């Protein structure tokens, strides 16, 4: 279901007669999102029990990165209309008229098929199946269905961004064992505070685009309260990997310290006056740092608890 906001295809096709550069196609892959996906996927590969040939690990990570990029391209295809009216996304290649939505869709479908088939042929079917499901979840469940329908869009849709470490794990073990899902849980619960912090200072953008983000529908106060609630859940979930023998003292210290800072920033955001977004900006920036550092600490042992 496309929203009522019309994306001028005439304008698009006229401008798209300009030749798109390789950089425009690269931008379709959402490289910043891709870097986080690639990194968490790499940690999934490293912490998984068992061994994998280094070449296979590289292939698995390339497939994860390309699959994530393909999802981004298809997201831009479907959201071309709302990207055109949101300040944050107006510079993307489709609203700028450098690439047509159809070209983005073709590009995304081709890369999806290539990444899933390569993963299945060369790595294993568990990783390929989960990669295919992740692409489907992000494009169909989140982008096409939930994003414009419900205020819970990024809570449920956030699962798509939480799968990569599990895919990395599956590439090594060939299975989807429980410990891998503790990393899923951490990213899943991290996504709402991360995204809603952004949505707070971009709520005008989302309102213009008619996207039912939490601050637009339930207001700032409710959003700030829910950010704190999810931050608590995330803080608790961040210790779950330790229970399964993933992560050691460094991770425990990092999860405690950075988690405390995360909660502090979330609390300051709650106390902040409506209409001011200094702490929202800080929480958004810090949340990225938090996830990178926490995942970077996961492989460092020795484990505090026995695996299994």
């Amino acid at each position, binding site marked *: 279901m496309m929203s009522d906001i019309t994306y001028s295809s005439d304008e698009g096709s006229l401008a798209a*007669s300009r*030749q798109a*550069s*390789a950089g425009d196609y690269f931008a379709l892959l959402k490289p910043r999102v891709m870097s986080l996906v690639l990194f968490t996927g790499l940690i999934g590969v490293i912490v998984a029990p068992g061994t994998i040939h280094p*070449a296979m690990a590289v*292939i698995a990570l*390339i497939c994860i990165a390309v699959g994530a990029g393909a999802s981004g391209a298809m997201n831009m295809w479907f959201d071309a209309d709302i990207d055109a009216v949101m300040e944050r996304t107006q510079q993307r290649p489709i609203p700028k008229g450098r690439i047509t939505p159809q070209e983005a869709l073709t590009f995304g479908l081709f890369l999806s098929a290539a990444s899933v088939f390569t993963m299945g042929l*060369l790595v294993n079917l568990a990783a390929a199946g989960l990669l295919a499901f992740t692409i489907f979840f992000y494009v169909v469940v989140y982008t096409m269905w939930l994003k414009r329908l419900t205020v819970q869009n990024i809570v449920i849709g956030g699962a798509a961004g939480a799968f990569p470490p599990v895919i990395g794990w599956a590439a090594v073990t060939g299975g989807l064992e429980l410990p891998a899902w503790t990393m899923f849980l951490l990213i899943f619960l991290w996504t709402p505070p991360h995204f809603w912090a952004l949505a707070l200072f971009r709520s005008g953008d989302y309102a213009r685009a008619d996207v039912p983000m939490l601050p637009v529908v339930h207001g700032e106060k409710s959003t700030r309260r829910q950010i704190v609630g999810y931050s608590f859940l995330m803080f608790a979930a961040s210790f779950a990997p330790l229970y399964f023998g993933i992560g050691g003292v460094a991770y425990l210290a990092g999860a405690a310290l950075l988690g405390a800072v995360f909660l502090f920033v979330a609390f300051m955001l709650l106390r902040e006056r409506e209409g001011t977004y200094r702490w929202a900006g800080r929480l958004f920036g810090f949340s990225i740092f938090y996830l990178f550092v926490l995942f970077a600490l996961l492989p460092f042992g020795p484990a505090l608890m026995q695996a299994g």
Partner: protein
Amino acid sequence: MALTPEDEKRRHGRNRAIALALAAFVILIFVGSVVKMTNGVIPQMDVEIGR
């Protein structure tokens, strides 16, 4: 419609990127297949052909 010099440059860059990406894809499949075969995974047909 003739392309402007700037568009021509973009087109060359894009074509080169496509060629490199396809070459990388072929190398990826080749290396992966070699690794799998050295690990003893040899593709075999399950059915007899030519009867």
